[in-house]
C-alpha cells in the first residue's frame, strides 16, 4: 500500500499515461496481480519488482485459518489448469499481525480478497481490516469451498444484500469478484452494483473436471476445480463486454491473460484494469513482461492515455 505521492503515474520511459482510476483509487498502470497467484506479495516480490505493477490482489483471506482441500489440488488441461486449493490461508489475525507489516511498504496498491461462510463473517473480516489496505475484493465466486462464497455469487438477491452489509462495515472501496458459473452474469453484476459495489472484477475460474482415462479416476481430490489459463479467455472477454454494457461502475477484467495484447483485448472490451493470474504460475516474470508488452502495444497504436481505449472495441 503506497502512501507516497503518485508522481510515477506517467511511465518514466515514454510519454504514455498508463494510469487508471478504479473507484477513486489511482493505479499507476492497469496491470495487476490476481488473487491466489501472488501469495501475500512477499513471495512475488522475491521474483519481480512489484512497484512496476498497478496493484496486488492478495491471497484469499478468511476470518479463521483454513487448511484448504486435500491433494491432488491441481490438474493440467489444454492451455490451462484446474485448481482446488480451497482458500488455504492463515486467517485474519496472522495476516494483520504478521504479514501486513511486511507488505505495507510495497509501492503498489494492496487489495485484500475476502471470503466467508456467512454474511456476518464477511462483515467482521472487513471491519477487522479497517483501512489497512487500499481496497477490498469480495470473493463471492470461489468454486472450491463447500459453504458460502459461490452460493452468494450465483444469486442476485444474495449478492445484493451481502454487498450492502459489507459496505456498512468498511470505509474502503469494494470490488465484487464475480463467478462465470451463472446463467446471466449481468443480473449478478447489476445486483452487486445495486448493493453498493464500487467496482467489479471478473471472471473467477470456471468449474471443471478431469478424469485420468487409464486409472479411470477423477484427478482432483475435490472432484471439481476452477479452470484458469488462456483456455478461458474468450469466455472472460465476452463476460467483461456484457457486464460493461450493463453497469456504470468500473470493471477489472481477468481470465487467461498471457500477453500485453491479451490485456489490451480486455481493456477494449471495457475493463478499466486487468489482472494476470495463471500466467505467473508458468513464469514468475509474466507480470513484468505483460506490462512492457502492453506499453509496446499502446505505442504501436499511437495511444497516449490508457483511459482513451477503455471500452474502445466496436
Amino acid at each position: 500500500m503506497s502512501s507516497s505521492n503518485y508522481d510515477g503515474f506517467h511511465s518514466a520511459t515514454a510519454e504514455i499515461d498508463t494510469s487508471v482510476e478504479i473507484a477513486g483509487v489511482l493505479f499507476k498502470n492497469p496491470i495487476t496481480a490476481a488473487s491466489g497467484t501472488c501469495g501475500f506479495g512477499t513471495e512475488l516480490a522475491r521474483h519481480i519488482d512489484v512497484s512496476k505493477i498497478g496493484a496486488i490482489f492478495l491471497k484469499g483471506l478468511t476470518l479463521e485459518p483454513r487448511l484448504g482441500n486435500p491433494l491432488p489440488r491441481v490438474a493440467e488441461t489444454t492451455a490451462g489448469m484446474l485448481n482446488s486449493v480451497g482458500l488455504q490461508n492463515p486467517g485474519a489475525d496472522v495476516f494483520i499481525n504478521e504479514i501486513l507489516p511486511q507488505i505495507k511498504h510495497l509501492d503498489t496498491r494492496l487489495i485484500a480478497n475476502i471470503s466467508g461462510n456467512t454474511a456476518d463473517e464477511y462483515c467482521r473480516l472487513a471491519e477487522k481490516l479497517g483501512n489497512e489496505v487500499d481496497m477490498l475484493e469480495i470473493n463471492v465466486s470461489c468454486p472450491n469451498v463447500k459453504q458460502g462464497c459461490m452460493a452468494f455469487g450465483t444469486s442476485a438477491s444474495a449478492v445484493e444484500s451481502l454487498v450492502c452489509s459489507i459496505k456498512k462495515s468498511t470505509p474502503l472501496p469494494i470490488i465484487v469478484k464475480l463467478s462465470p458459473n451463472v446463467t446471466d452474469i449481468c443480473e449478478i453484476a447489476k445486483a452487486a452494483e445495486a448493493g453498493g459495489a464500487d467496482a467489479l472484477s471478473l471472471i473467477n475460474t470456471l468449474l471443471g473436471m478431469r478424469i485420468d482415462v487409464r486409472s479411470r479416476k477423477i484427478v482432483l481430490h475435490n472432484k471439481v476445480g476452477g479452470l484458469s489459463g488462456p483456455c478461458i479467455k474468450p469466455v472472460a472477454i465476452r463476460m467483461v463486454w456484457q457486464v460493461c454494457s450493463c453497469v456504470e461502475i468500473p470493471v477489472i477484467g481477468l481470465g487467461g491473460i498471457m500477453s500485453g495484447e491479451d490485456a489490451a483485448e480486455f481493456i477494449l472490451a471495457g475493463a478499466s484494469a486487468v489482472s494476470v493470474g495463471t500466467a505467473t504460475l508458468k513464469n514468475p516474470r509474466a507480470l513484468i513482461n505483460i506490462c512492457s508488452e502492453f506499453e509496446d502495444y499502446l505505442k504501436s497504436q499511437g495511444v497516449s492515455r490508457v483511459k482513451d481505449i477503455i471500452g474502445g472495441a466496436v
Partner: protein
Amino acid sequence: MDSSLPLNMKIIEKSKLSDDVYSMWLKCPVDFSGSVSEHIGKFLHIECGESNFLRRPISICQIDGNRLRIAFRVKGSGTRFMASARVGDSLNVLWPCGKGFDISSVCGKSLIIGGGIGVFPLYQLALSLEDCVCTLGFQDENSMFFQKEFSEACPTFVATDDGSCGYRGFAVSLADELFEKYQFKNIFACGPVPMLRKVQELAARNGISNCQISLEERMACGIGVCMVCVCRTVYGENVPVCTCGPVFNAAEVDLS
C-alpha cells in the same frame, strides 16, 4: 529479488538409463564449483513445450562446474516432451528452486536410502558426503539404474523387490539391517511415500535426529504462491513443497 528467473539451458549430453529413464546434462550460466553443497536436492522447474501448460519439477542429480545433470522417468506428456529433446536443444528452466539437503551440520556416518527414481536427487549427496553408505531399492534387476555410479561414490547395497539382484525386499529393510553393522548419525532419503514413512520409523527407532527426506508432489508455480503442492507438517500446517521443501526434516512432516 532472487536470481531464479527462467532462462534457457542447453542440453549438452543425453543418455538413456533404461527403457523409460533418461539422463541429461544441461549447461548453466553459473559456475557452481564453490557452491555445490548449497544446491544438493534442489530442483529445476522445466517448461515442457507448447502442449504442456505447466512446468515439471525435476531434481538436480549432479553438479559439475557450470553443468547440471538431471535424470527422469517418462511418466506423462511433460516428461515425454523432455525425453524427445535432443543434444543442442535448450530447455526453459526456472532454477534453482526449493530447499535442498542441508549437509552443513552433518557429522559422523550418513545413510542414504533411495527408492526407484528417488535415487537421482541423492546422487550428488553420495558424491559430496565424506562418510556415507547407500541402499538403493528397485523393482527388479531390469529396472535398476545408477547403482554403478553410486558404488563408485560410496559403499552401496542394492535391494530388489523380487530378489533378482542383491537383497530381496525393500531398501529400507536392508537399511534397517545395516544399523547392526554401522553407527549412522544421519539419514537422507527419497522415494515413494510408503518407503519414506518407513524411513521416518527407522530414524525414530534409532534416535537419528538428522533425518532429511525429499518429497515429490505435483506442482504449478514452483515459487510458493499457488499452494497446490502442499504437505502437512506435524504442527498441523500445510506448507508448499516447492519452497519449504522438497527436502524436509523427517520428524516435521506428517505423511500419514
